[in-house]
């Protein structure tokens, strides 16, 4: 139960941050990505602020060694640069640039219940599950690298 409350609280704070930062507004995001047009660079500040606070919190978590709830900090372990990382990044950027929504802001916008945002989130879920399913099938067939497609995030 403490884990659920903590997770809910962190999700709530995360969502509030996304709303205040402007990341949930696709037009602001597209303005930030429109480097060759009327470029609005201020969204870079969001990233800078988020990364700065996160690194302070992460170094605290590293020094402490274990979380308040549970025994271990689940740090991502992968360090290899493989083709799926590069192709995935390119595919993700293409999708992000088309509408200006990435997963967090899309979910925060879900409460509006407009048809486009519902369509976006469902399509996003299909893209995620589709890849995971395909990945699992191909790895179990080859039974090499076990499904340690341990995510980075």
């Amino acid at each position, binding site marked *: 139960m403490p884990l659920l409350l*903590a997770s809910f609280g962190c999700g709530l704070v995360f969502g509030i941050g996304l709303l*205040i930062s402007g990341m949930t507004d696709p037009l602001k995001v597209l303005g930030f990505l429109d480097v060759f047009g009327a470029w609005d660079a201020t969204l870079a500040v969001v990233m800078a602020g988020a990364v700065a606070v996160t690194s302070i919190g992460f170094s605290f978590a590293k020094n402490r060694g274990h979380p308040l*709830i549970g025994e271990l900090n689940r740090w991502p372990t992968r360090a290899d640069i493989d083709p799926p990382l590069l*192709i995935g990044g390119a595919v993700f950027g293409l999708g992000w640039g088309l509408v200006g929504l990435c997963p967090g802001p899309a979910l925060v916008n879900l409460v509006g219940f407009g048809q486009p945002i519902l369509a976006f989130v469902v399509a996003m879920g299909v*893209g995620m599950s589709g890849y995971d399913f395909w990945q699992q099938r191909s790895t179990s067939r080859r039974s090499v690298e076990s*499904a340690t497609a341990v995510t980075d995030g």
Partner: protein
Amino acid sequence: MHNFTPLSRLVGGAIIGLAAAMLMVVAGRIAGISGVFAGILSPDTTDRSWRIAFIAGLVTAPLLGAMLGSPLPRPAMPTNLVLVIASGFLVGLGSRMGGGCTSGHGVCGIARLSPRSLIFTAVFMVTAIATVAVMRHVIGG
């Protein structure tokens, strides 16, 4: 939340960072939205409940804002539904292929100075900028 200023962006960013830091300090987990969300959808997930709680918090945020007087977000999205679906699909697919998204790689990964995250973020920034350039200035121009 109508007037976005650099200050509100910085504050918003810091709050995002606070949430990511808290999830690690308190629960020992990375606040990567695509990973958390995909875990809910996967049939093999063994730790589904905290993921649902996190996403529920995320979805609740604008409702809390509405109670405090901010209007519910009405994202401006293209009327072309095929474009919207293609965008959502690519965002979902790419995030799973690369193991993260703007939050897991872009914020948490860069904060850890993870080479994978630095590269993933650089690649998606370049293709997103190129996509907007083509959509706005080549096709839409």
